[in-house]
């Protein structure tokens, strides 16, 4: 059997939203005047609604569009199509590239740490738990440690983004468009390799070959981005010899 308060519950929800019909509103407010329990319900529903709207928002990772674009190409979408009003010029690309440099530098540090831990799990340190017979403690400690490192890297990433936006907007026209297109294409190929490695790692988190493959792709991307930024600097300075030297190195790599 429905109690009087239960009969008002849904209307109180609509009152919290501000969507309750005026005709119903008076009846609900009359009940609230003498029912502390329903007043508490209204206050709580309003608090939940308010807090839900203030939850932090996540940004999709820069590599996600690369993955989607690769998938769209396999479905027949062409790169030669129309303009891109959402990403005018090369600003977004350079922002993503510059951000990726920071992420990958951090990633390189992480990679070396993770690789060290992965290669020598039998070497305990003062900060790692002792191994048990099954090795589960090592695996758990490793996962927790890596997660902590990734969280720290994410914070560095967010701080770096603000500064990199200025760099990206200032340097977007430094490169010859043809060179920029070639470099972008190469980066997309490496991003695809990174995405594949991450997919493999998700299905087999303990796989050493998958981890090595990911770090190798990350190292290649870091190297290419470092060369790209050096190239931007040389082109902006008008140093033809330096530009030619870097381009020659890029063609060999």
């Amino acid at each position, binding site marked *: 059997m429905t109690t009087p*308060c239960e009969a008002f*519950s*849904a209307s109180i*929800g*609509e009152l919290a939203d501000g*969507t309750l019909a005026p005709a119903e509103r008076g009846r609900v407010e009359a009940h609230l005047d003498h029912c502390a*329990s*329903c007043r*508490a*319900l209204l*206050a*709580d*529903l309003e*608090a*939940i*609604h308010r*807090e*839900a*709207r*203030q*939850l*932090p*928002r*996540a*940004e*999709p*990772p820069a590599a*996600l*569009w690369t*993955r*989607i*674009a690769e*998938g*769209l*190409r396999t*479905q*027949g*979408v*062409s*790169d*030669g*199509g*129309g*303009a*891109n*009003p*959402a*990403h005018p010029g090369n600003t977004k690309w350079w922002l993503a590239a510059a951000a990726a440099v920071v992420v990958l530098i951090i990633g390189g540090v992480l990679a070396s740490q993770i690789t060290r831990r992965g290669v020598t799990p039998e070497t305990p340190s003062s900060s790692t738990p002792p191994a048990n017979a099954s090795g589960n403690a090592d695996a758990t400690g490793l996962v927790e440690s890596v997660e902590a490192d990734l969280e720290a890297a994410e914070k560095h990433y967010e701080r770096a983004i603000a500064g990199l936006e200025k760099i990206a907007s200032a340097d977007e026209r430094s490169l010859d468009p043809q060179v920029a297109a070639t470099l972008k294409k190469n980066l997309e190929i490496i991003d695809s390799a990174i995405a594949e490695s*991450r997919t493999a790692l*998700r299905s087999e988190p303990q796989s050493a070959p998958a981890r090595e493959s990911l770090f190798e792709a990350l190292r290649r991307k870091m190297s290419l981005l470092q060369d790209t930024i050096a190239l931007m600097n040389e082109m902006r300075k008008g140093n033809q010899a330096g530009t030619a030297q870097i381009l020659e190195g890029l063609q060999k790599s």
Partner: protein
Amino acid sequence: MGPSKVQGREAEAALVERCRRGEMGAFEELYGAYAGRLYNVACRLLGNPADAEDLVQEAFLQAHRKLDTFRGNAALGTWLHRLLVNLGLDYLRSRAGRTAHATAGMEDVNVVPFTRPETVAERIDLEHAIARLPDGSRAAFVLHDVEGLDHKEVAAVLGVSEGTSKSQLHKARLKLREMLRQ
């Protein structure tokens, strides 16, 4: 606030037409307009960023495959949200088949005040509580209370009536209230 970020039906129709012609730039524009909101919905629907990335990717690829079925009756953003949420709910159903995904019943919710979530730690509790909602109620709550869609839009995304949308949302809020006071 609604899910439409490409302003105006004419602009939407023009963008859809360019996407139908297979222009990568048009898809990148589509991604730029909607990926942020879709990714947030996906994160809270599935509970982790890695699955959310896969879901957003599949939603955009499916959008390309199904673009001919978009008639413009609903806003483009609503149509994309619907693709994403349907894929997400399908995924959750298959995941539930593989794992013992505990979903508490929605009945017998007590009416007891709880301490309002006002600190970061309590917001994390709210996130955890959202993740523990039954799938259908969670989708309604995320779309309405977190993303700010109105009930007409939520109903269109979920393929239900506005009354069902209101009912699912209210059940979700009562369940959250119960979990947060524990």
